[in-house]
């Protein structure tokens, strides 16, 4: 029995519903020797900004119980370099490339999207709205429904590409943000991004991260992520990509049941470069064991009674 694993998400055709999460897979090159990129459902590359960014001062990471904090600071060589150097490399593989877009202002995001609109090999955009909006005192776009909607509206007006918006979990009401972003024109949502966290060295009294506060990822955040995917998926009609601490296929199934149409594997790649493919294999085994024919049979199927 052939399983139906193919997914069309926000207009992007994927051979399976397992993607790699932005920030954990670079721009594809580094893992290409270890993983057959062509087997992935999609690759979401690390965020690109209009100008090159140096990123934050180190130390940039700290391991925490069942997870890690990071404050990389969006180090990247800028969208121009990405288009010239990384896109052609990725184009060798039969895998949709979704470009994560970051910025400090609405103008920044628009400028990046404009450049990508002309580029070859971009299957879709993932808008990283967890960036601080410098024009509003550094509050993340994603923490305010109005700012998020305004940003999405501006970008939407300038791009015909599938537009997925990556939501921040650092909000009181994820459904509110999800609805605002859907109304503004998003084709899909992805969540969750990292949860704000901090660690302090008891000997030196200094924060473990030079940036003081960072983003928590890994298994520790999975219950938060599953809950938010569930809340967001119930609130919107557009499809949802679920992520947050997925290590195994069983973890991924939780997200499908909560309402995700696809999942992304991130921090797990650090433990196992083949994590996404192992999750994919495990999903197939799960569906076969449950005598299900495809992914559609589990999406949103959590039983509340």
């Amino acid at each position, binding site marked *: 029995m052939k399983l139906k694993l193919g997914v069309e998400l926000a207009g992007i055709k994927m051979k399976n519903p397992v993607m790699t999460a932005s920030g954990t897979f670079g721009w594809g090159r580094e893992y290409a020797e270890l993983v057959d990129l062509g087997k992935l459902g999609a690759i979401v590359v690390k965020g690109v900004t209009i100008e090159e960014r140096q990123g934050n001062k180190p130390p940039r990471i700290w391991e925490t119980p069942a997870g890690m904090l990071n404050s990389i600071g969006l180090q990247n060589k800028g969208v121009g370099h990405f288009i010239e150097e990384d896109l052609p490399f990725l184009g060798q593989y039969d895998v949709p490339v979704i470009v994560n877009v970051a910025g400090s202002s609405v103008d920044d995001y628009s400028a990046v999207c404009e450049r990508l609109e002309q580029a070859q090999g971009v299957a879709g955009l993932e808008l990283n709205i967890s960036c601080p909006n410098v024009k509003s005192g550094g509050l993340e776009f994603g923490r305010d429904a109005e700012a998020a909607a305004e940003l999405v509206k501006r970008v939407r007006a300038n791009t015909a590409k599938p537009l997925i918006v990556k939501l921040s979990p650092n909000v009181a009401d994820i459904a509110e943000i999800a609805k605002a972003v859907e109304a503004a024109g998003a084709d899909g949502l992805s969540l969750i991004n990292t949860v704000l966290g901090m660690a302090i060295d008891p000997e030196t009294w200094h924060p473990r991260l030079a940036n003081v506060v960072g983003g928590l990822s890994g298994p520790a955040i999975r219950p938060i992520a599953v809950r938010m995917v569930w809340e967001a998926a119930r609130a919107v009609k557009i499809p949802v990509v679920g992520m947050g601490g997925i290590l195994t296929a069983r973890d991924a199934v939780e997200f499908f049941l909560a309402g995700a149409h696809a999942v992304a594997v991130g921090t797990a790649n650090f*433990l196992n470069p083949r994590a996404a493919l192992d999750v994919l294999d495990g999903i197939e085994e799960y569906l076969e064991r449950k005598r299900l024919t495809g992914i559609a049979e589990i999406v949103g199927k959590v039983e509340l009674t």
Partner: protein
Amino acid sequence: MIFQAEAVVLKKEELASGVYRLTLLAKEIAQAAKPGQFVHMRLDGGDFLLRRPFSIHRRVSARAFQVLFQRSGRGTDYLSRVETPARLDVLGPLGTGFQVPEKVERLLLVAGGLGVAPLPFLLDELSGKIDVLALVGAVNKNRILVLPDLASRARVEVVTEDGSRGRRGLVTDVLPQLIQNHRPGIVLACGPEGMLRKVALMAAEANVSCQVSLERRMACGVGACLSCVCRTVDGFERVCEEGPVFDATRIVW
């Protein structure tokens, strides 16, 4: 080329209190390895734990290599308790190793504590024509490690902080004089960052090339996550990719 391999632990030796040497069978990694490179090891404790990086200590055969480490935290504690023939998920060989220029006739190695780790491999691969002086320092005589492995291929000067072996003091106390006497074409150093910074300064003052092997906490180990960066004159660079070995003059300490 880098490989993800299931390495078999062939041997575990405790060289000093809390210091271990593991011999691992992993053919492709052993064959591809170059001195100064490292492996990124998965340590399962039934828990989420990032991989830990370890210098490749020595290639002992066409199929096996060694790592040297000190038990200092959860990861190394787990590793210190593996029993042969355990299997370990190893990624490698990774990073940019030592680059000894062709024309170098005399080499000065500087190692502090566990900084000796990458040196036996380097010595094994060096042309027999190069005259090597190894300056090795540690807190006391018990922490002077793998001396016979170094002494078989180099003249060794030992320095201990308590004077229990060799001269009393730090490697940096004797380095300037050794540079002057030995006149190396290049200095290669590995050890605590404070030591490396001083070695770099002394080499620069003597107008001698210097390479240092840096250590940073890592997540992916393959250059994708940008966690392990150090500051260089050209911006932030990855210790797992552009390093761990760097031209000392490029580092912004």
